[in-house]
């Protein structure tokens, strides 16, 4: 049914360790913004060109601004909740940048920055966090699935989207994101196995930000690394510095192109850190030290790329101004849009459950309408 290059490995033993991640975590730019020394990588990961890095840097700045602005809007009561990707913006941006428009992105609740980087309208995207509707954008418009809350479930949808494309002979790639915690769920396992067995073009990106809410990685897994899980599916695994946009673009880009060309799925673990609490409802000081957080401030993805690009002469004052302005424009769009009052239509409750509302839903809708007509305050108490 499909060609499986890995199948030849079926009989092998330790000889199949090409499926294992490189010994050294892939890094191209150090935390100090210098070109990293060559690691013992199993593949060649060339440095992306400066133009690409500059475009990526712009998205990082915008992403950081989105995270900060959203945080402020939560504090002002304009958003119900916001799971920030502050500190993880390089993963977010790389996930969007390594895909073509025809490809699909499967984000989680934390991946707002990736969603926006794919081009989704910001106010549509934020509708869910404002509490207007569970998902506010049309997934088909930019091939961005709804942001998934039930952990790891979306990985299977990515496999399905890729499988459908493959059956039609299309070269679409699906990139699905999940967290370190989500790798413990049964659906993670089933998704990776299905992807490998059906040999479909899916890139699984695990943002290992060291915590699942309060639970540190060591209570989640004692594997040598999360990328090592790949071998159990006959899939290639790789570990990358998740705060290094250059390395992420190289590794994810290679995985996506390999998948597009029939090379099958891949698992990429990005080492990063959730700099803020899980969401505004959480209090990270209950379970981790300031010292630990401070260590990661030094590895900030923006700072190092700014330094690298500046040193390379690719980021001038004019660029910085332009980028800052773009970020500010988006922030203003968010502020204005989310400060505006919306009045969702109660009849929407019944409109979309089925393609055509059932007689029962029609009846319930009529009864709510009658009730609202009778109580001019507009709501039941």
């Amino acid at each position, binding site marked *: 049914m499909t060609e499986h290059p890995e199948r030849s490995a079926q009989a092998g033993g330790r000889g199949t360790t090409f499926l294992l991640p490189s010994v050294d975590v892939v890094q191209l730019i150090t935390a100090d913004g210098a070109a990293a020394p060559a690691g013992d990588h199993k593949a060649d990961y060339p440095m992306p060109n400066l133009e690409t890095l500059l475009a990526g840097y712009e998205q990082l700045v915008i992403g950081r601004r989105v995270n900060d602005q959203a945080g402020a809007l939560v504090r002002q009561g304009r958003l119900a909740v916001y799971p920030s990707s502050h500190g993880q913006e390089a993963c977010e941006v790389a996930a969007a940048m390594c895909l073509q428009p025809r490809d699909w992105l499967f984000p989680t609740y934390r991946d707002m920055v990736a969603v926006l980087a794919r081009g989704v309208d910001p106010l549509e995207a934020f509708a869910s966090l404002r509490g207007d509707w569970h998902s506010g954008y049309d997934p088909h418009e930019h091939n961005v699935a709804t942001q998934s809350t*039930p952990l790891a*479930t979306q990985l299977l*949808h990515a496999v*399905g*989207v890729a*499988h459908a494309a493959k059956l039609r002979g299309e070269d679409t790639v*699906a990139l699905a994101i999940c967290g370190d915690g989500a790798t413990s769920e*049964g659906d993670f396992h089933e998704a990776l196995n*299905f992807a490998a067995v059906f040999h479909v073009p899916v890139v699984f990106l695990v943002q290992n930000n060291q915590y699942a809410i309060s639970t540190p990685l060591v209570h989640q897994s004692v594997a040598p690394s999360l990328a090592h899980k790949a071998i159990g599916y006959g899939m290639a695994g790789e570990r990358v510095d998740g705060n290094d946009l250059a390395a992420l673009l190289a590794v994810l880009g290679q995985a996506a192109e390999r998948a597009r060309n029939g090379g099958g799925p891949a698992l990429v673990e990005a080492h990063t850190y959730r700099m803020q609490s899980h969401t505004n409802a959480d209090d990270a000081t209950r379970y981790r030290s300031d010292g630990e957080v401070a260590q990661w401030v030094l590895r900030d993805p923006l700072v190092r790329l700014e330094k690298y690009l500046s040193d390379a002469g690719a980021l001038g004052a004019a660029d910085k101004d332009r980028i800052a302005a773009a970020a500010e424009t988006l922030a203003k769009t968010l502020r204005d849009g989310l400060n505006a009052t919306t009045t969702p239509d109660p009849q929407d409750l019944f409109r979309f459950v089925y*393609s055509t509302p059932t007689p029962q839903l029609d009846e319930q809708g009529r009864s709510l309408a009658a009730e609202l007509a009778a109580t001019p305050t507009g709501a039941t108490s």
Partner: protein
Amino acid sequence: MTTVSQTPHGVTSRNEFAELHGVQTLTFAKALTLAMADAMAADPSVVVFGEDVGTLGGVFRVTDGLTRTFGEDRCFDTPLAESGIVGMATGMAMNGMRPVVEMQFDSFAYPAFEQITSHVAKMGNRTRGRVRLPLVIRVPYAGGIGGVEHHCDSSEAYYVHTPGLTVLTPSTVADAYTMLRDAIASPDPVVFLEPKKLYFAKDTVDLDALRARHTAAAPSTIGRAVIARDGTDATLIAYGPSVAPALAAAATAEAEGRSLQVIDVRSLVPFDDTTVCAAVRRTGRAVVVAEAPGFASMASEIAARIQERCFHSLAAPVLRVTGFDIPYPAPNLEKYHLPGVDRILDAVDELQWEDA
């Protein structure tokens, strides 16, 4: 919604299903196979997958011949993981396909419960109708086959309580064909419950007439109950595996001079209030029959709705004859558990005829 015009690997052999025509005596299982085959022939986006559905043709042989006829891309085995199957189907449905997946037995759909409740049921609503999931989850269900544990659950309550799912269960060979085709044609996800004990029941049907419904866009069976037998004294309301004992009870009652009407609900969600209420208002008495444990079940819903809507027409409470509130029993005890003719007639006797 993208539509597939041609799969890369097309039909691999002659379509043995298309060759069947006219009046035929078919098993319930074969009617289901034909429904899938005809849907696959008509629409290349229809794909069938699940555990052992390919080469083997399914443990009940309901998919027998589909891989042979349509190729491995259209009907294929998956790894053994039900959440995986439903989750992958969800993604395929998001991307232009119409997957029809098989859960091997009722209880083995439970690993897929999160995918079904949190995604399959909710995706259309979540996206304000922008992502509809035209997929069918076929579930062989219910008992009466002497099956070992986990092979006989009547699991419909879990699905009918979950908004967003359409839940169908045919009880005749003709409906097996028609309703499965309606399910596959539905833009919304359908949980399609197949009473296992009917798989090898036979009936003679006019295949041309059945097929014509789907080319002529006849009204869908979804949302429509049928009167399986008319009667005037009381209404038996049943579905799936319980229609047969209800009909048998009605036949016995007739000999005893009591005229029982039998309704086959067949579309559990959406529910056909119109047909059911009209019937009960006429007879004034109703007994709901179902195999599942009665507590908080489909039968509870039917009883609750009828008394809400037909209270002043009722000469007696709406009674329920259901499975007991116990795990489905081992083979040698199932005869005590299943609603049978005697138990149904006992309930009818309790409908306070003296008051009437």
